[in-house]
């Protein structure tokens, strides 16, 4: 979900995604987990990929973008996540009262 969220509105390549997930989402995922996950999401058509050769880079990079199908999936996952955290939040608050 964090990965799909990160690709919402902006294309990113593997290493950048890894760094953003670590620095902004606090998810310390390994390279060996991230790239196979990106591969699976691409196969499911939740994200799309394209190779880009930027001027500053000496080699091409594979950029990933959220697709329409991925956007729908993200909305569903966000709705479920919000409902779950809301319920859990009220339950924990009740425990303190």
């Amino acid at each position, binding site marked *: *979900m964090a*990965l799909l969220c990160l690709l919402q509105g902006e294309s990113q*390549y*593997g*290493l950048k995604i890894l760094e953003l997930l670590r620095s902004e989402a606090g998810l310390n995922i*390994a*390279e*060996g*987990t991230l*790239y*196979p*996950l990106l*591969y*699976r999401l691409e*196969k*499911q058509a939740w994200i799309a990929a394209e*190779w880009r050769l930027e001027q500053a*880079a*000496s*080699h*091409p*990079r*594979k950029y990933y973008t959220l697709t329409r199908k991925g956007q729908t999936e993200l909305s569903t996952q966000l709705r479920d996540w919000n409902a779950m955290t809301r319920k859990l939040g009220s339950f924990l608050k009740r425990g303190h009262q």
Partner: protein
Amino acid sequence: MTDPLLPLGAQQWLDRLALSLRPLPRQEVDAILTEARAHFLDRLGQGQPAGQLLDGFGEAADYARSFVDAYFLERAHSRRSILGMIQAVARIARRSLTGAVGFALAILFGSLGVGAALCLPLKLIYPDRVGLWLDLPLNARHRYVHTGAEGPAMNIGHDHIVVGFATTPPAFPEVLGGWVYPIFIAIAILCLLAMRALLARTVRSVIQEFRRNRL
């Protein structure tokens, strides 16, 4: 092929990765290798020591397995061909309980279906040796005396119920007669449909298992 931009350890890891990715189409292998190489070059560009480049990737064979499993599972899920699904589920059966159970049940139903289908031409060749023999009542003590050597296991039951192909026809009555054909055709179709449904369900469950674990 030697890559002058990469340290030897990373090159050797990429070579092992290429070997382990052999079941995938060439284009997919090239994309995975190029992406890993780009990652290494970016890390080197950021000043990461050559010795730490492989940190986080794990063994090349394990890393490759994630891609190969995902490729076969997604292909089986989208195409729904029986062979493709068997291939995908057989690959995953050693590492997933759902996969192992699904594979075992699919093989059971598949064997029953194929067995029933094979009985049809055998019935034409050996009309007396294919059918359903019942020695009633079923709760009676063992009465059937084997009159000959047991043949290949294409029959179910040895004492009171014998169904399928019997090398030596049992001494008690065969009850199906000409109904053998429609009934065995129905069994074959139902078993193969059950196998297909089981495989599809297993593929779907394993993909969901993957999503739950990794997302």
